[in-house]
């Protein structure tokens, strides 16, 4: 199997501060890789750098996605190419109903790929099925995106968008934060339903808990801007038991 996502020697500074310092990682299609690490290790920065957030540009290194260099593309083009970042704190967009937002996004992606837009009735049918699977109240989707939504509702909204946009590279940034056990189960089922041989997933998390629900094929430890250890699912359990201390930079 050829690697779909290939990150080589990635360096990213935020402001003047180097955050990622030579990160190298391959995620083959069909696999779920977890990125774990202490606070401040650069986990969220990795998600932003892969999705193209302004201010998180690479200063060195490369990111290839399906053989194409991601770093040359603007965020919308990356999205149309299959990149989806599920935000740790999804943004509220007053004045734009959730349905309008998702349909605009879906059709923009389809246009960018040279595909036909989805008609309104067809879209509504898709949304109704996807929201029912996530046990979401359909009327909520008529409200402005994420405005007044609870933490759990916002995360379900992220998964709903994922299900509708059908990305091929999924980056989940601390998806478990702010979720109770029931919501965590529903959200995880939503993510697991998207596992497929032609999709790659990066699950960024501080705690092992999420990995009980979304089982990773590989676990990587990110500390001080680099992958410092990699292993199977047992590595997550070890981290849960021992903490990140041994991966932290030694005091001078």
């Amino acid at each position, binding site marked *: 199997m050829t690697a779909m996502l290939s990150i080589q020697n990635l360096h990213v500074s935020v402001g003047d501060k180097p955050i990622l310092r030579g990160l190298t990682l391959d995620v083959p299609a069909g696999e779920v890789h977890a990125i774990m690490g202490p606070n401040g290790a650069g986990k969220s920065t990795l998600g932003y750098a892969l999705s*193209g957030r*302004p201010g998180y540009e690479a200063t060195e290194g490369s990111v290839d996605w399906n053989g194409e260099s991601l770093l040359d593309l*603007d965020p*919308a083009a990356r999205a149309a190419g299959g990149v989806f970042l599920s935000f740790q704190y999804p943004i509220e*967009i007053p004045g734009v109903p959730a349905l309008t937002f998702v349909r*605009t996004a879906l059709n*923009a992606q389809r246009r960018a790929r040279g595909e036909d837009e989805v008609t309104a009735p067809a879209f509504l049918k898709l949304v109704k099925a996807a929201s029912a699977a996530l046990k979401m109240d359909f009327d909520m989707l008529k409200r402005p995106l994420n405005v007044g939504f609870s933490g759990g509702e916002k995360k379900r909204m992220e998964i709903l968008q994922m299900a509708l946009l059908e990305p091929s590279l999924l980056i989940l940034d601390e998806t478990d934060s702010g979720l109770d056990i029931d919501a965590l189960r529903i959200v995880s089922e939503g993510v697991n339903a998207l596992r497929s041989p032609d999709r790659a997933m990066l699950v960024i998390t501080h705690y092992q808990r999420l990995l009980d629900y979304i089982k990773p094929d590989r676990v990587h430890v990110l500390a001080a801007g680099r992958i410092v250890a990699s292993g199977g699912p047992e590595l997550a359990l070890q981290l849960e038991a021992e903490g990140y201390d041994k991966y932290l930079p030694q005091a001078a």
Partner: protein
Amino acid sequence: MSAWPQLDLTDVATFPSRRVEAWKYSDLRRVLKEAPQPSASAALTGPGPFCDLGGEAIVFVNGVAVGVDAFVASGEQTLRLRFVSDAVETGHSTGVRVSARAGAKLLLLESHEGHGSTYVAHNRLTLDVAAGAEVTRIVLVEEPEDAISVTEAQVKVAPGGRYRQTIVATGGKLQRLETQVAHGGQGADVRLDGLYALTGARQTDMTTVVDHLAADGQTSQLTKGVVRDTARGVFQGKIVVERGADGTDARMGHHALILGERAEVDAKPELIIYADDVQCAHGNTVGNLDESALFYMQQRGIPADEARALLTQAFLIEVVDRIEHDEAREVVRSWLTAKL
């Protein structure tokens, strides 16, 4: 605004400059150095933006009334008030009086339809809202970028009256839209909303003065604007609560987006309170589009330009959504969407 004499287009001495405090951001003297020649009469063109809503009509073309120039509403009525300018380098003035009798419900649909160029228009509207009457005034202003216009509305809201106003403007060389409200209190309820969307070198000045004369009156104001290029938006909102006007509840908000590095917004909210037991609040923000929202939208595949347009429209549409009359609201929505 009290100290300055009434504007008269034939007398250059009445043209206020920026040294007159109330005209600080709309220096008429600077853009109009002498009295313009009077505009010739012209033929009426076009049906106006509100033609589909029917009702009665008062039409002025270059200051000349085509038919009646006053209106008294009783019962439920719609009046389209059209100020049409079709002139080049000349000036014209109008004066119109509209009143709503007790129990009347008037939908006043006002349009400023500018053709030609570099004209000067001066419009004065006197509006009386009787006790128990309700007037909704919706104003669409579309003028050439080099036109000068001053529109002054004097609104008297009797105790227990209800007044709703929404002005939507795209600016001109100098465009002053002033509303003065004598607020009768005692349950009288006033809403003064505004919306501006300016490009190029356009300017608009939305000035309001609400004078709460008696107890238990309510005022709610929301003005939103977006300025691009070198455009300039002005909001001056003054609320005065007179001695004895206890129980007044007045809220004013002005929020603007500056989407051009050389664009400008001048905002002057003022609350002047002489009564003790009142609730007054004002909020004023001027900023840019939310960067994190823009990135979020792009991350989902919406190209940057489309994301900006969607966010801008969402920002402004809150003012349109406050229009209670369904058909009028949809006319304003499509009018605005076409301009953005």
